[in-house]
């Protein structure tokens, strides 16, 4: 049984926190994509990225 403290790959989860909870990164209009201002498509992109990161962490968990 792996110990929680040993799960270093869980640190990957910090990335979405920093990326989405620090508005200076994305509070701007340009560049736009398909009419969506930067703030909006950036946050939508992060929905996919957080799913991807969770998937990766899950995969590593399964193989450890």
């Amino acid at each position: 049984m792996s110990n929680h403290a040993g799960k270093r790959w869980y640190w990957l989860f910090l990335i979405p926190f920093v990326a989405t909870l620090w508005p200076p990164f994305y509070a701007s209009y340009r560049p736009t994509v398909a009419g969506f201002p930067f703030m909006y498509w950036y946050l939508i992109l992060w929905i996919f990225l957080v799913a991807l990161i969770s998937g990766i962490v899950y995969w590593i968990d399964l193989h450890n």
Partner: protein
Amino acid sequence: MIEEWGLAGRRFGTFVTWFLLGGDLYTAYTFIAVPALVYGAGAFGFFAVPYTIVVFPIMYVVMPRLWRVSKQHSYVTAADFVRGRFDSSLLALAVAITGILATMPYIALQLTGIQAVLQAMGLAGTGILKDLPLIIAFIILAAYTYTSGLRAPALTAILKDILIYITVIVACIAIPAALGGYGHIFHVAETALPATKGSLILSPKLYSAFATLALGSAFALLLYPHAVTGTLGAKSGRTIQRNAALLPLYSLALTFIALFGYMAIAAGIHTKDTSLVVPLLFLKTLPTWFAGFAFGAIAIGALVPAAIMAIAAANLFTRNIVREYFATNETPRNEAQVAKIVGLIVILGSLVFIVAIPLKFSIYFQTLGGLWILQTLPTVMFGLYTRWFHRWALLIGWLVGMVIGTLMAVAESFKTSIYPLAIGHSAILGYAGVWAILANIVVVVVLTLIFNALKISNGKDHTSAVDYVTEPAEKIAQ
């Protein structure tokens, strides 16, 4: 047994759990309230997106621990866990009462979704007729919750979400097509928002409010009794983790639901009652038959979370108040019967809430509920990792957090949960729940050091470290 009625025997797999937890995340109230906020405030309303982005990593890491220790010790509620972990029925009572208080107005607000839809369709009657559809909806809710427990909302959740996803997909394609595309919608919103003191791009003075509200809401969501019930109904810790990776699809739907606020601006919807923003938008831009379909989806969408919330509140009341203080020798069979009756009372209570008390009080109470439930974080979530904290320190910290959070909300006349914290000559805007939890944590840490130094008894831990990491299936395999 209460585990059968209240947690559906902890047997839900990935598929059902996904719908059940998704039903917690976006409720009929979300469908109405998030676009309403975006309609007036613009970018600030999109705090809901980072909120639902960060909630899943927290869920992935924290909730399987709660699931495993609860399975091991047959805990049905977070307060059950607290009682076992900290050997303190008073601390467990604090967690249970906070959960019940936070849940009641939330159930009531689900009904505003149904009310808004009826009003927009011009179906809202007067006098006793005004409340008749709500009463009928609540009777259905009460009956199916009573007979089937958590299985009832689980099955309805699947139907509800199919209807909601169809609504969202069609609306976010058809409405922009009718209004001239997303670029045009954003452009109109940018021009119109300053009139309501909103903005299309978040203004720097709101950065801290936006981020703290998103982070605080994410932790609060997982501490809500209905989220705990949805989680504990899963069949393994793995099921919860798989769901954390799959649930962001709901965040995507929520983003487009939030965008309905801008679509309403672009469609020229003018209403003082912002809860009508989405229903009026649908009526104006979609064929009548499809608007009707969407309204049905919203109405059914109200019943699923309301049922999960009622069950969660009933579990807390039965396990942590009735069994603890009034019927200490309850048999499992009686316990389930008590929970079913309490479930009925909770549902009737929230019906009274919505019929007898003006809507704005439910919303105020809901604002308070969010910051109250967040004050159980040190006890429940930190408690899943460490027993270093002293039980009396946790109780006093909780009380301090509750009082500070409530006073901040009162100071803002309940109009917003954002409080300007004065530091030196400037003020930082932040979610009152986050200011309160920071004070709560400081008190907990300081008092823990003091109480430990004074050697005040910290009780006996009924759980062991291995309980938090062991998947039951793995034990069988060994």
